[in-house]
């Protein structure tokens, strides 16, 4: 406990770095995953291969992915940049998959009513499909955020900072206090993000009966 008060400033700084990595990666992942997921519902032929690729990224061990990206020219120059790209890759699958399935699972009767009312594809998306799929899409964002917070601790291995720095230092010097000083705030971040997004997700559920 003593450690926490002594290093409050450092823990604060690393938590901020951790948040910065996670939030930037999430913004990129949503900016890519959401439109791509929507596009796949319009070009269903591409759904399987594209989601397959996102799946492959997801299954790569994070340490290996960070290592693999290090020699890539522009990316390898800046550790935080590299970490954000890798984290974006991890966050992509849940967002992409939930956007696609969320929209695909909208009741086909409602889709045909929307068409019968003369909605264009864009109007249908905005007025019917996105509102009805919103909670499923947000569930994907929530999963992705929790994954990101966790994987971001590994980013310290390549010098990208974040709470992982304390954990790695603690492991190297066999100092459990140091490990906990990194692990506890990271776990708290994940819990807070999870419950906030969970609350929002519940609010977006459309009541049917």
């Amino acid at each position, binding site marked *: 406990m003593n450690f926490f008060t002594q290093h409050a400033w450092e823990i604060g700084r690393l938590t901020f770095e951790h948040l910065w990595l996670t939030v930037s990666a999430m913004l990129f992942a949503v900016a890519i995953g959401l439109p791509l997921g929507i596009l796949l519902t319009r070009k269903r032929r591409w759904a399987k291969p594209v989601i397959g690729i996102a799946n492959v990224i997801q299954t790569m061990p994070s340490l290996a992915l960070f290592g693999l990206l290090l020699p890539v020219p522009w990316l390898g120059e800046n550790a935080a940049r590299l970490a954000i790209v890798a984290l974006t890759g991890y966050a992509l699958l849940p967002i992409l998959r939930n956007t696609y399935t969320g929209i695909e699972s909208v009741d086909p009767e409602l889709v*045909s009513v929307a068409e019968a009312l*003369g909605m264009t594809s864009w109007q249908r998306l905005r007025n019917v499909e996105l509102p009805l799929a919103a909670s499923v899409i947000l569930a994907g964002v929530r999963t992705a955020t929790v994954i990101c917070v966790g994987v971001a601790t590994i980013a310290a291995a390549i010098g990208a900072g974040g709470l992982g720095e304390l954990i790695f230092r603690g492991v190297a010097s066999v100092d459990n206090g140091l490990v906990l000083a990194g692990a506890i705030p990271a776990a708290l971040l994940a819990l807070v993000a999870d419950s906030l997004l969970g609350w929002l997700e519940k609010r977006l559920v459309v*009541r*049917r009966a």
Partner: protein
Amino acid sequence: MPTAGVEFAKVSFTPDGGPSILRDISLTLAAGTTTALLGRSGSGKTTLLRTVNGLVQPTSGEVTVHGKRANQLHDVQQQIALRRGIGYVIQETGLFPHMTVERNAVMSLELDGRPKADLEKRAREVIEQVGLDFDAVRSRFPWQLSGGQRQRVGLARALALDPPVMLMDEPFGALDPLTRSEMQEMFKELQRQKKRTVVLVTHDLGEALYLADRVIILDNGEVVADLAESEVASSGNLHVKDYVSAVHHLIERL
């Protein structure tokens, strides 16, 4: 010679790799009349109905609505213009669950970009036309309504643009018998006020006879009976007799 409301010319529909659902159907439905489509599940009646507003594109043949071609419209604006002139009512699930009654009812006007004041005015008109208290239901969501009220809102939505053609796919099928007969009365009244060209898919011969001027029975994608409402009782057609005797059995059991 009455003018043609909806015309099917040699309409066939075979989905990719599936069996034929519609086989060479040719029919002319007079403008301002109500035609009931009867048939077993899978006979093709819903599919035929959906070729009228382009939800199903026939594999071959042509569909015409008030003299305008209704199938293979490659221009999106043409397709939309066609659909704006056709009201569409389906069983139970048709209302958007995330929209209020008011927004559901005048969705077609909203899509047209009409001003807000117009939307509210028209919403009040159509909601009251179908026998609901506008101020009481306007801001409710579909789950807060009874089945009968939902069906009324569905009907109001189809009437919002005052379309000359209405497609109704088992509109009263999910309702309890009392509500159903109220809705049938209301439908009759609406038809008295303004003659629309109505295509009504139903399982119920009684409903068909009560609401329609003409009864068509489909079986396996083909028209097997086509007669005026007044000819049904005395018809020698086997398919018609099946329906009539099923109704008789029901009455006898009472």
